[in-house]
């Protein structure tokens, strides 16, 4: 039998540790590329950096969600479910959609009107977030994000074919998004995913963020 995850201290501990780790990795990617951006003002670098800032914010709200959830266990005080349920989902959905669209933008910026695209990015992300907030529709969020992911992956694949040799980046992005979609399901209210599956999904996501950080670190050390 699968217990309610918010009543299981081990489950919540793993959640908090995982979110904290990803927040740290994303922020380190953001700050380590600051100097490079300052020197070049390269748009691709800018979109790449902001992708990870928005991922960090998405995971920060996820972290807050779980922190509020365990408040009852630690402080004998429980935040009302209507607040801790949909609110973090609103922000997590918004920032994660923006992050994914910024990653798409980091590949597309040379061939599209960036101002229009950015406006569309925020409108799409806001719509997804409001849908998530009003109806708690995690599968809809997943579906929309999946469409953006597929577009990004196709583009990454086409770009990597044009560059010398096959880019391993394509595989990394593919894993990142698979991990992210699994994470959105975990965030949805009423989820019943076995603990083992969850841990594997966390491990894959953390490993992918770690791998991207390692690649950034190698270039910026």
């Amino acid at each position, binding site marked *: 039998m699968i217990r309610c995850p918010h009543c299981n201290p081990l489950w919540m501990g793993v959640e908090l540790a995982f979110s904290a780790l990803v927040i740290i990795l994303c922020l380190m990617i953001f700050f380590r590329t600051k100097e490079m951006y300052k*020197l*070049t003002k390269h748009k691709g*670098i800018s979109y*790449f950096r902001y992708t990870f800032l928005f991922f960090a914010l998405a995971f920060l709200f996820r972290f807050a969600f779980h922190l509020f959830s365990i408040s009852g266990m630690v402080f004998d005080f429980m935040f009302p479910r209507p607040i801790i349920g949909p609110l973090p989902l609103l922000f997590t959905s918004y920032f994660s959609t923006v992050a994914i669209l910024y990653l798409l933008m980091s590949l597309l910026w040379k061939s599209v009107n960036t101002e229009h695209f950015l406006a569309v990015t925020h409108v799409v992300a806001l719509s997804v977030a409001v849908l998530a907030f009003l109806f708690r529709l995690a599968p809809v969020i997943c579906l929309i994000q999946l469409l953006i992911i597929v577009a990004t992956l196709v583009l*990454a694949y086409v770009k990597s074919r044009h560059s010398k040799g096959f880019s391993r*980046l394509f595989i990394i992005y593919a894993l990142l998004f698979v991990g992210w979609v699994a994470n959105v399901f975990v965030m949805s209210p009423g989820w019943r995913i076995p603990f083992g599956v969850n841990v594997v999904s966390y491990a894959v996501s953390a490993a992918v963020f770690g791998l991207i950080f390692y690649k950034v670190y190698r*270039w*910026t050390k």
Partner: protein
Amino acid sequence: MKKRDRLEVIHDILKIVRDNHNSIRPTPLLRYSNLSSQSFTDYMNELMEKGLVKEIKDRKGKRFITLTDNGFKYIDQYRMIKGFIHDFNL
């Protein structure tokens, strides 16, 4: 001949300035950089805006282009930046 990309042109301009004892008049810089005068003006405006070069005047009021600290950093980190952009397909 392969067309230089934007980062490469900037790198080339900065290297010309550095290799001329970090002080060069705009006209020889234009000549050595292999750019049209319109492109050269655009690049110079961009470099000044980004704080990579600055303009100084000597006692006679002649204008010279010189690198800032960020200009030197750009040259040092150019390979790394190019590698990063290529590696992440940016």
